[in-house]
């Protein structure tokens, strides 16, 4: 987990803490407010409105919760969109869809349920119900009022009949009782009560009214009657099932307190119960009607509470599901961005066990493989870079060496175009870089002299080394030309490297040295026979002067010596002459096998015990060179080999093909040649035998060179010497 992710997680934890603290603060604020309200609100109001009170606060809390959830996520989305966070658009669409999908049906359901409840409540208070109850109540009221009116009239009459009765005189109580009893019967009343203001005086009760207790109408009722002249009251004494309808009439006397007559009717308990039921039903109806807004409100609030709970749950679940989808996608998008920026160490760390989990796992695996590939690529690249650096160094070194080397070097591609050449080559060939680089040899070397090089290149098969004499810039040059074929790693020919070595000065030096040596050797060789000649001449002269009798013999001996030495000198001069007059090779088609057989036939019985063997492979049986000169070469080499090899021994001659050339090898099992002698072996007048002119191997070297070939001498295994001659086959 990197620093950013740890900070994000830390921040998320803080937000959770803040959310919990905010929720707790809100909760305690509401509780505190509720406590304050309950203290300040009277208990009766609180009891009546408790349901609405609780429902309202629950709804408010739920609304705040829904708003908090929605606004929080919408705010986060808005911030993410402002910051152009990856996946914010997708998350917005998903969250909007979830909210819409949860809001629309819930709100529709709420609207429909609210309308349904309101309609149901309204139906409860339909006009027919109200009318029935009103009519019942009106009937009850009418009955009560009619009875009260009858009683009122009775009370008025009784008040008139007792006007002359002194209510304060106990002696007239009997008379009062008679008047009241008669009035009770005449007015069809159930009871009559007489008061002096609020002071009870007398009462009569109709026995047919049943076992009833006399009601106590109360001073307020009596005072009201006194104040107003009349009063009506319906009494329902507690603990009794009787109902009394009382009517009071008061008469203020001229002296003393006013008289009050209360006439009453005892309602039949059955009728009283039915009328009371009607009244109470109407009263209950009116109570419900009065409470109709509250009833509606309670139902609506209840539905609203359920709606909000559903909305809160669905919103929360929807947002949770949206997060479940968007969080991995956001992480993947972020991961893709990081990977696109080159951070292949990034891994998506999201808990998901569905298809998104598979996607995350695949992404991480892909990133891991990309990282491995990159590491491998970087490693290879570093290796390649190192190789290129080494190559550049080598190329620089090669270029430096090529530039400073004395030999001329040219490279020719497989189409025969010159791709590189150094300054030495340009100087040797007297050509500029423009005349050579990028041009085919046929074009660059088309003049007569340089065409020798072109022809040499054309005819080159395998490694080729020739000395070529060219007349360039008005002077002769002797160049040793080495042509080496180039191949790519697959073995495909890609061209040639041509190495030119200017041997002009070396050859001149060698010629000078050779002539020095030749002069020394000639002087030596001439001086050697001259000494016996001079001595013979001086001896003859002495004999002659002395008159020696042995002069004749001496003369004969001396002349013989002189003749012999002169002959020796002549032979030496002839050899010099032949070496000097060696003709240029005249190549012809030669059967090498036949040449080999004829030559070796000469040495069959020369040295008994010496094993002579020869081999010619089929591919070189037919070759083109100067037969007589090559025969001379073979004879010279065989002479030396046979002479140097002690018996028993062997001399082996082979002719094989190699890279388009004919290779002749003459190997013996003799004592071999020292390294010092090998270096001087092909110089004229050098001999290890202490006799002869020392021109044999020089002549061999000259013939081989004239044929465009090479000759080298090596040690044979286990002993002896091998001379290897390589001649172009064509």
């Amino acid at each position: 987990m990197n620093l950013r992710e740890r900070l994000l997680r830390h921040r998320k934890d803080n937000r959770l803490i803040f959310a919990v603290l905010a929720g707790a603060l809100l909760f305690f604020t509401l509780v505190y407010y509720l406590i304050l309200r309950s203290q300040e609100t009277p208990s009766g109001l609180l009891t009546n409105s408790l349901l609405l009170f609780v429902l309202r606060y629950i709804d408010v809390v739920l609304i705040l919760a829904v708003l908090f959830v929605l606004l929080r996520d919408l705010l986060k989305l808005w911030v993410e969109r402002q910051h152009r966070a990856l996946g914010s658009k997708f998350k917005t669409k998903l969250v909007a869809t979830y909210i819409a999908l949860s809001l629309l049906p819930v709100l529709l359901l709420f609207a429909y349920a609210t309308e349904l409840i309101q309609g149901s409540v309204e139906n409860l208070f339909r006009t027919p119900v109200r009318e029935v109850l009103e009519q019942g109540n009106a009937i009850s009221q009418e009955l009560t009022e009619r009875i009260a009116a009858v009683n009122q009239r009775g009370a008025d009459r009784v008040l008139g009949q007792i006007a002359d009765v002194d209510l304060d005189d106990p002696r007239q109580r009997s008379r009062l009782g008679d008047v009241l009893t008669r009035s009770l019967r005449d007015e069809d009343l159930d009871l009559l009560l007489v008061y002096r203001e609020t002071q009870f005086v007398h009462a009569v009760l109709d026995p047919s009214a049943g076992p009833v207790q006399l009601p106590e109408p109360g001073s307020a009722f009596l005072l009201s009657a006194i104040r107003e002249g009349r009063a009506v009251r319906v009494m329902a004494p507690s603990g009794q099932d009787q109902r009394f309808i009382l009517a009071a009439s008061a008469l203020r006397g001229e002296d003393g307190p006013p008289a009050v007559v209360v006439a009453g009717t005892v309602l039949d308990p059955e009728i009283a119960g039915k009328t009371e039921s009607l009244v109470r039903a109407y009263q209950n109806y009116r109570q419900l009607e009065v409470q109709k807004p509250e009833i509606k409100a309670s139902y609506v609030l209840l539905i609203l509470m359920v709606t909000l709970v559903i909305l809160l749950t669905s919103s929360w679940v929807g947002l949770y599901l949206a997060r479940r989808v968007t969080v991995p996608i956001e992480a993947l998008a972020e991961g893709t961005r990081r990977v696109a920026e080159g951070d292949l160490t990034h891994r998506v760390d999201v808990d998901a066990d569905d298809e998104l989990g598979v996607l995350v796992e695949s992404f991480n695996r892909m990133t891991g493989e990309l990282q491995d590939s990159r590491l491998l690529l970087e490693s290879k690249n570093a290796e390649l870079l190192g190789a290129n650096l080494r190559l550049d160094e080598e190329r620089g070194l090669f270029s430096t060496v090529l530039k400073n080397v004395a030999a001329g070097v040219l490279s020719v591609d497989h189409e025969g175009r010159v791709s590189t050449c150094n300054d030495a080559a340009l100087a040797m060939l007297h050509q500029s870089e423009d005349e050579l680089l990028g041009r085919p040899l046929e074009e660059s070397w088309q003049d007569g002299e340089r065409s020798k090089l072109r022809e040499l290149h054309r005819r080159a098969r395998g490694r080729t080394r020739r000395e070529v004499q060219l007349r360039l810039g008005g002077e002769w040059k002797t160049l040793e030309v080495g042509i080496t074929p180039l191949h790519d790693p697959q073995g495909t020919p890609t061209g040639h490297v041509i190495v030119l070595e200017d041997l002009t000065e070396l050859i001149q030096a060698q010629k000078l040295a050779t002539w020095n040596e030749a002069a020394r050797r000639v002087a030596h060789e001439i001086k050697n026979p001259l000494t016996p000649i001079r001595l013979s001449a001086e001896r003859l002269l002495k004999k002659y002067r002395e008159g020696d009798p042995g002069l004749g013999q001496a003369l004969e001996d001396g002349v013989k010596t002189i003749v012999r030495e002169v002959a020796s000198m002549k032979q030496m001069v002839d050899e010099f002459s032949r070496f000097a007059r060696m003709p240029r090779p005249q190549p012809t088609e030669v059967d090498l096998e036949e040449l080999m057989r004829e030559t070796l036939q000469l040495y069959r019985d020369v040295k008994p015990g010496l094993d002579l063997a020869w081999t010619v492979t089929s591919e070189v049986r037919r070759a083109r060179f100067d037969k007589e000169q090559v025969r001379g070469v073979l004879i010279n080499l065989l002479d030396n080999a046979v002479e140097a090899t002690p018996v028993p021994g062997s001399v082996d001659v082979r002719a094989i093909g190699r890279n388009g050339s004919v290779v002749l090898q003459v190997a013996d099992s003799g004592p071999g040649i020292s390294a010092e002698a090998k270096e001087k072996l092909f110089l004229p007048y050098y001999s290890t035998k202490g006799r002869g002119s020392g021109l044999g191997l020089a002549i061999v070297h000259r013939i081989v060179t004239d044929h465009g070939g090479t000759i080298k001498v090596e040690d044979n295994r286990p002993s002896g010497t091998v001379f290897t001659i390589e001649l172009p086959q064509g």
Partner: protein
Amino acid sequence: MPEPGRPPALQSFPGMWKALVSLLLLLVGATGAQEPRIENLHVTRQNGRILVSFELLDALDDEMLERVQSGLPTELAFTLRLERPRVFWFDKVFERSTLQVVAMYNAVTREYLVNYKLDGRLIDSRVVTDLPGLERAMTLIHSLPAFEVMEESPPARLQLTVRADLGSKPFLFLFPNRVDTGWARLWLVEPAAPGAER
């Protein structure tokens, strides 16, 4: 043809002129309607107690009377406080009393029973048979023994405040909105010799 003295917009819409006048009349009518209030607040001292009298005006509207006549217990709650007027002091209330006046109609006997509870204790009960009597019984409070007189080191100045709570009506269907009269105030200059000043 445009009428002189009338704005062109109103000339184009004759109905709008009438609507504006109607709205103005409604506003004037609404402003003219009397709010529930407490008046005639005064106190007397008797037998070591402060007797509070006041009158609640324009409180019993049709809705409340309808509620009473339906038989539902209907309550007016009066909150009485003795306050010490200190500006920078949170505990201003010196003493508090609550008077609940609960009216209940008996449709069988056609009587109104009015109960009086002081701090939750029933102190009086009356039966009235008509609406004027009911209104008087519920709104005219006479010599209510609300507070005991403090004989020992009473505060130099006390203020009596009275408020009537008339119930609650929801605002925007959800938020409870208490309906009350606001505080009526009366300065008690000297507790030992009670007198009223506004």
